[in-house]
Each structure stands twice: as structure tokens, then as C-alpha cells.
């Protein structure tokens, strides 16, 4: 919940960002999004009138992400013409809401999956992967240097998140999976921009039209197959089978996925899930934030990813 004092701080922050006095009306917590607390806020501004904004608040490092790069990549991609919500402001300190946050324009649309929304969505994801890195202002991401670094950088990134957020002792199966992923990392021909969390639930659409790609906190430079694997085996798992996805993506966007490589990237995504979910348990056990969704993420959601990972590669 946002307290009255925080509302006043947020009003001052937004008034400054928008260059006109604004008051906040109703503010509702959204149920979508686990890594960030998301609020839809009604804003009444002196000159521009009424508008809705979304306030996206960090949660004690939950899932290992932070807003700074998310904001930077959203601004860069919006500049490239991709359907990305406009970021209004970014507050890196904890002074106003107790955690860093950013505010973006509210985009009309639904994130509930429909089959008709899929074609424009995968077209946009493929477009993201085709962007020439030299033409975009995203020099803040680490560039994979060696041929296997697209995979290895991600293995170590999530291993660090898992180890630094560990509540108690290590999980032997996570440790073993990390080593398997190091030993079997494939080569990547050309690093590209990778969304990191693509699929149903992470895009908004309306009437068959794609309105916005959302949730850019895991975006990085790497292998686009990582995104396709995530789409197929994580967010899109209930949409169609792996075989059907592979055939669909070949037909829709001309992506020919090698099944052995796909298996690796699916494993990496499951490992990433198992690693980042552990941060929720740490935050809960340390009593930094006692929301029951953190208990769920840190226990059963973590274990679900770990079980699938172990069944896949160990």
C-alpha cells in the first residue's frame, strides 16, 4: 500500500517531472507483475488534465533486477519505434516510496492471451532481435566477447543473484545445473538484444493490435534463442506444444530453431527461474517484505523450476 505521506511525495515528484502541478487520485495495486509492485494511478494535472500512469516500484532486489537499465532500454527502444510505454520519470533513491521506482504512461490493453494477438507479438520480438546494436543507444549492457559468452554471462549473472540472495545453505541441484550449463554453453554467432522475459502476460494488446511490450528488467545482450526458448517453454508453455511452437515460429518469423540448442536455452531459462526465485525467500525470511507472493515464489515456484531443470539436464 502507498501511504498518504508517500502519495504527497509522489505528487511532488510527478509535478516536477511533468513541469506542472499534479494531484494523485485513486491508486490501485495491479495483480500482474511479481518482481515489482505495480500501481495504476489517476493523475489530475493543472494544464494537461487527467491521465493514468503506472508506478513500478522495486521490491528489495526481488528477482535480481533493478530499474536503471530497464528505464534506459525502454527509452532507447521507444526511440526506435518499438511499442514500448513512455517512461515519465525515474527515481533511483528510496526517499519517496521506500524503494526505487519509475513512472510510465498507462497503455490501454489487456495482457490476457489471445491467439489473434500472437502474430503481431512474435513479429515485434523478432524485430527486437534484428535491431542493429550499433544504431541504438544501449552501451550500458555488457557485450558478450567470446563465442560462448552469451550463455556464460547469463549463467554467471544468475549464479551471482542466487548466491547473493541465498537464505541458508546452497541447493546441490542448482549448483550442479550451473556447472552443466557452464560445461555445455553453446556458441552464439552474433549477440543481439534479448528481452529476457517474453511471452503471454508480458505484452498488451487490444482488438488484435499489439499495444506494448512490457517488463524489460531482464533485457540484455545475448542469444535471441534464449528469448524463443523462454517463450516456448515458460510463458507460452500452455499455448501450444514445443513442436507446434517450433513450426509456428519457422512459419511466422522464419526462425529455424535447432532442437539441441533450444534444449540448452530452455535449461538456462529454468535455471534463471530457480536462481531468481530464491531471492524472494531471502527477502521473506529476513522480514524485509512479508507479502505471501514472496513466500510462494521462494518455495513452490522456485522448486517447480528446479524440478523441471533437474529433469531436463541432470
Amino acid at each position, binding site marked *: 500500500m502507498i501511504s498518504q505521506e508517500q502519495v504527497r511525495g509522489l505528487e511532488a515528484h510527478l509535478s516536477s517531472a511533468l513541469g506542472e502541478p499534479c494531484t494523485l487520485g485513486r491508486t*490501485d*495495486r*495491479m*495483480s*500482474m507483475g511479481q518482481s515489482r509492485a505495480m500501481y495504476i494511478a489517476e493523475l489530475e494535472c493543472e494544464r494537461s488534465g487527467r491521465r493514468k500512469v503506472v508506478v513500478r516500484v522495486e521490491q528489495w532486489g526481488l528477482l535480481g533486477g533493478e530499474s536503471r537499465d530497464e528505464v534506459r532500454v525502454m527509452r532507447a527502444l521507444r526511440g526506435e519505434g518499438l511499442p514500448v510505454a513512455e517512461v515519465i520519470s525515474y527515481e533511483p533513491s528510496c526517499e519517496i516510496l521506500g524503494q526505487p521506482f519509475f513512472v510510465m504512461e498507462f497503455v490501454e490493453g489487456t*495482457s*490476457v*492471451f489471445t491467439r489473434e494477438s500472437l502474430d503481431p507479438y512474435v513479429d515485434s520480438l523478432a524485430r527486437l532481435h534484428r535491431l542493429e546494436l550499433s544504431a541504438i543507444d544501449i552501451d550500458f549492457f555488457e557485450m558478450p566477447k567470446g563465442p560462448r559468452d552469451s550463455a556464460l554471462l547469463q549463467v554467471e549473472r544468475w549464479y551471482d543473484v542466487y548466491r547473493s540472495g541465498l537464505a541458508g*545453505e*546452497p*541447493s*546441490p*541441484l542448482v*549448483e*550442479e545445473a*550451473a*556447472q*552443466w550449463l557452464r*560445461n555445455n554453453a553453446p556458441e552464439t554467432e552474433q549477440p543481439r538484444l534479448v528481452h529476457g522475459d517474453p*511471452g*503471454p*502476460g*508480458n505484452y498488451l494488446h487490444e482488438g488484435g493490435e499489439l499495444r506494448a511490450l512490457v517488463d524489460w528488467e531482464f533485457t540484455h545482450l545475448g542469444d535471441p534463442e534464449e528469448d524463443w526458448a523462454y517463450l516456448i517453454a515458460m*510463458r507460452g508453455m*500452455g*499455448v501450444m506444444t514445443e513442436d507446434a511452437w517450433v513450426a509456428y515460429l519457422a512459419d511466422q518469423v522464419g526462425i529455424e530453431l535447432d532442437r539441441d540448442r533450444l534444449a540448452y536455452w530452455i535449461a538456462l531459462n529454468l535455471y534463471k527461474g530457480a536462481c531468481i526465485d530464491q531471492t524472494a525467500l531471502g527477502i521473506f525470511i529476513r522480514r524485509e517484505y512479508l*507479502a*505471501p*507472493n514472496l*513466500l*510462494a*515464489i521462494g*518455495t*513452490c*515456484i522456485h*522448486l*517447480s523450476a*528446479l*524440478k523441471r531443470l*533437474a529433469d531436463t539436464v*541432470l
Partner: protein
Amino acid sequence: MTLPVAPDVETILDSCIETLRDVVAPSVEGDWPRYNAELMVGSLEYVKHLLREDIDASRREELSRALDQVKEIVAADPAPEWAEALQEESPFEAASRLLVACQNSGGEVAERIRATLHPVLHAQIDAEMARTMGLFSAFARNMVGAK
């Protein structure tokens, strides 16, 4: 005056679970509050399991017994990585180091170590997933966009 008999913890928890699930959650307006009410039902169901047994101690003992078997397996193969791993005080640290070493070395001993440790670790995952099934169901129901 004292109560003739105090209600036990599990009965009170069951009362809370049934009331939250059947009375409170269905009448809550708003996706976020309702989601939290459903997660609280799962949390309380998990609490019941945690009250019944010392799960941490059980897991530690199970893994320690498996590590005793590993000691017999590696007795015939005095490679330093096995011995170093088995010197770890924590069974979870020891199992972690052993399984990482198995991935790096391969071979028959590595396979036997994995075959000894994996069933224990998988069974622990399955048991914990069963204990947290209520939380999982509540979480999955509220995954926006998922079918």
C-alpha cells in the same frame, strides 16, 4: 476460570483456512486483495506441515545418510575432489561440491555418486512441492496472461 480444554493449533488453523477460502476470499473485491487472500490460504496450509515436523532436520539427516554411502563409493577412488567435498561440514555444501565435481569429471564413480544423491534431493523437492501445493495453485491462478 479456565477453559476445560484448549482448542489445538491445527483446529484453529483449519478454521482460519476454511474461513479465508470460503468466506473471505470470494467476497473480496479487487484482483490484488483477492490474490493475497488466496495466497494466505496456501500459506496457512504450509504452516500446518511446518508445525507437524522439523523439515530442515529431516532433510539434513536424509542427505547425511546418502553422503555416508558416497563415502563408501569413493573409498576405491581417492581423487582429491571427492575427499575435499566430503570434508564440508554442511551436507548441502558437501553434496553441492560433489555434484559439481561429478559434472566435471564424469566416469563411473561420478555416476554412482549422482545415482546416490539425486533420488534423495528429488524426493525432497517432491515432498516440499506437496507441502506448498496450496500456494502454488493460488499463484498459478493469478498468473495474468497464462492460460
